[in-house]
């Protein structure tokens, strides 16, 4: 093979004073960056192989390791930067499509960080959530246009099926296959414990998890992997995945190497075969067709379960969302361009789709303008990092959010973006049994529950500060938001005033 022009991205610094040559790091690194140098007679590292996942750094008993960005730089050029040059080398060497994991890492504006929240002063007292009741409970699903009661006060209107959340945060779709059995188990356990939902992604549902059915949203995507009556029966709701924020408009495929025995059982495909998901659902070429699938699912589940439709946030998201509402979906999930994934073509991840903040506002406005906002709930996802992102999403008009990347980070993900290699040292996005073992599902579930607990306290604090005692009252309440450093167009789309106004 000819010489590669690629130089290491990271440098592994080993403190020779501290390193006692125990060789643990050699065993730990699935990228095989550490080895025993016969010549040097000690453990050394191959910088080129390191992906900076920091697993060895955290695990080294002597704290002897540090990983840093490699100091080697190309001559300064603001246009032809490091990444653009190296990407060309990679493609010139292989002729292949660039692949990556996790979400868009480019310098696009982060609107969350350009919006600030209100707080009560004098005229409207703030509420102390530690002493006073504060409601985070959220119901997702179609709400009737009006409520009718009989003369004894009993509800006579038919209430469509609802999802009941203790905290307006769910776990987004991640398949068993893209994530490990233990990671999947941790999400299921945490969802049950915290009174929220996790989502199977497109990978089917392993029978081991049937006990979690009441907290499971099962996905029906274009490949229909693992989808049958039994699967639909073991769920609280069914999500039709049209698109995802990390790779709008394209299908996906799980390479055969990741289809081991358990994944094979769950997806119901032979061991070692590629699981290819076509880009569109080939039974959906229009809103009318979408309606057909929504009602096929409703018929199959006796109209007892809400049907979610998940789309990526793209240019015409508001019009599309209106179509989805009219097609009969109970919940629309909008996935912004920062959304993560186990594997996506880099160019698509980084260049397709729009920020979730703008999409929420646009969709909420459109549905309200058309008088159909009550017909669907809106779930926003794609890069929600913390409780203030959650609260801003709801103030912009979402009913709830989904988190996936944040959930993986809670379990130990260090954002090396190498999920697509299947070698995740943290045992999250891998099917290698040795690596999967590293993630203790109970410990990971505990960390997830902690995260949700911490966020719910913070959300209550912020709500109380605004003088609001129920999350429901914040929904679409954009008066609680002000923009900072945003243009008039941006403010108009977000439907908020500038700070100081």
């Amino acid at each position, binding site marked *: 093979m000819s010489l590669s022009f690629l130089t290491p991205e990271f440098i592994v610094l080993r403190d020779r004073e501290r390193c006692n040559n125990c060789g643990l790091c050699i065993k730990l690194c699935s990228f095989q960056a550490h080895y025993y140098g016969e010549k040097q007679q000690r453990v050394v590292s191959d910088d080129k192989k390191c992906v900076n996942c920091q697993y060895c750094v955290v695990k080294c008993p002597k704290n002897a390791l540090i990983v840093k960005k490699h100091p080697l730089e190309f001559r300064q050029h603001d246009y032809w930067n490091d990444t653009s040059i190296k990407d060309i080398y990679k493609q010139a060497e292989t002729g*292949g499509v660039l692949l990556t994991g996790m979400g868009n890492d480019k310098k696009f504006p982060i609107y969350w960080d350009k919006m600030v929240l209100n707080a009560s002063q004098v005229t409207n007292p703030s509420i102390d959530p530690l002493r006073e009741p504060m409601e985070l409970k959220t119901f997702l699903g179609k709400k009737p246009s009006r409520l009718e009661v009989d003369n004894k006060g009993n509800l006579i209107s038919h209430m469509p099926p609802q999802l009941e959340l203790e905290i307006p945060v769910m776990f987004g779709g991640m398949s068993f296959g893209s994530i490990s059995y233990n990671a999947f188990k941790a999400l299921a356990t945490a969802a049950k414990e915290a009174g929220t939902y996790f989502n199977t992604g497109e990978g089917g549902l392993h029978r081991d998890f049937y006990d979690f059915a009441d907290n499971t949203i099962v996905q029906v995507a274009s490949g229909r992997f693992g989808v049958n009556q039994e699967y639909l029966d073991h769920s609280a709701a069914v999500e039709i995945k049209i698109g995802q924020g990390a790779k709008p408009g394209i299908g996906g495929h799980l390479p055969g190497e990741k289809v081991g025995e358990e994944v094979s059982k769950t997806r*119901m*495909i032979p061991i070692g075969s*590629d699981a290819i998901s*076509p880009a569109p659902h080939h*039974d959906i070429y229009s809103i009318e067709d979408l309606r057909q699938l929504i009602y096929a699912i409703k018929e199959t589940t006796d109209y007892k379960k809400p049907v979610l439709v998940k789309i990526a946030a793209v240019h015409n998201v508001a019009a599309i969302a209106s179509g989805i509402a009219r097609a009969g979906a109970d919940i629309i999930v909008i996935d912004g361009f920062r959304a993560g994934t186990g594997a996506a073509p880099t160019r698509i991840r980084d260049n397709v789709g729009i920020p979730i903040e703008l999409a929420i506002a646009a969709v909420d406005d459109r549905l309200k303008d058309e008088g159909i906002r009550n017909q669907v709930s809106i779930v926003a996802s794609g890069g929600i990092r913390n409780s203030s992102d959650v609260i801003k999403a709801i103030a912009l008009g979402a009913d709830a959010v989904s988190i996936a990347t944040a959930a993986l980070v809670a379990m130990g993900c260090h954002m090396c973006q190498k999920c697509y290699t299947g070698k995740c040292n943290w045992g999250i996005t891998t099917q290698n049994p040795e690596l999967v073992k590293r993630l203790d599902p109970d410990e990971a579930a505990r960390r997830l529950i902690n995260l949700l607990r911490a966020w719910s306290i913070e959300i209550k604090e912020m709500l109380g500060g605004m003088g609001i005692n129920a999350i429901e009252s914040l929904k679409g309440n954009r008066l609680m938001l002000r923009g900072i450093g945003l243009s008039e167009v941006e403010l108009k789309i977000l439907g908020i005033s500038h700070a100081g106004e």
Partner: protein
Amino acid sequence: MIKTIDAYGLYYKDLNNMIKKYYEKGIQEFRLKRVSGQRYIGSGIHGKPNIVIEGTPGNDLAAFSDGVNITVKGNAQDAVGNTMNDGNLIIHGHAGDTVGYSMRGGKIYIKSYAGYRVGIHLKQYQDKIPVIIIGGRAGDFLGEYMAGGIIIVLGLDVAADEELVGSYCGTGMHGGVMYIRGNVAPYKLGKEVKSDTLSESDMKVLKKHLSDYCNVMGLDFKKVVSKTFTKLYAYNKRPYGKLYAY
């Protein structure tokens, strides 16, 4: 006992609800008269009833179903057997597009022709091997993304100048097999598809399914099987394996 339901003018939701309710009460045999476009017949039934449909059932016949047996005395519309897991669907007429989309098990027999994208993403798993047999011709994109199972096209009622399959046959195919009664011009095939003659074991499989089909449809098995078939299968189980840089 056979329960006869006159479906004329019934909304699909009410019709399907009726079938489910009667089935729960123990009725196994149904005869649906004057069916005119009602969708999802046979979906969401936990069991294996026998349903005879007179008329034209609507889209998504037996979608997601898991063992229902349906005989249609007439034509069917789009997405027959969508994501079906098990069961038998017999259509004594023609069927529309995307027959057997992502089907994982069971059989769909169509007497006459079928539309586009028949058998798209057909799968198979362990002892589940779905089978689609089309008596007439099939439209474009037959067996697209096919990952398993068997598709048989017989071309029994086609004119001499008509082709048995449309264009892009087997595009993205990475598993399963198609048997076509006659030749398929190479330009009709997706680039992932290889065409070959049938081996002895292929013939065994083919004959087994054809004898059942001929039996059900009332056809002369000997005549049907006498013509030379072409076998279509995937070059590669991993058609997109070499697409990526690292």
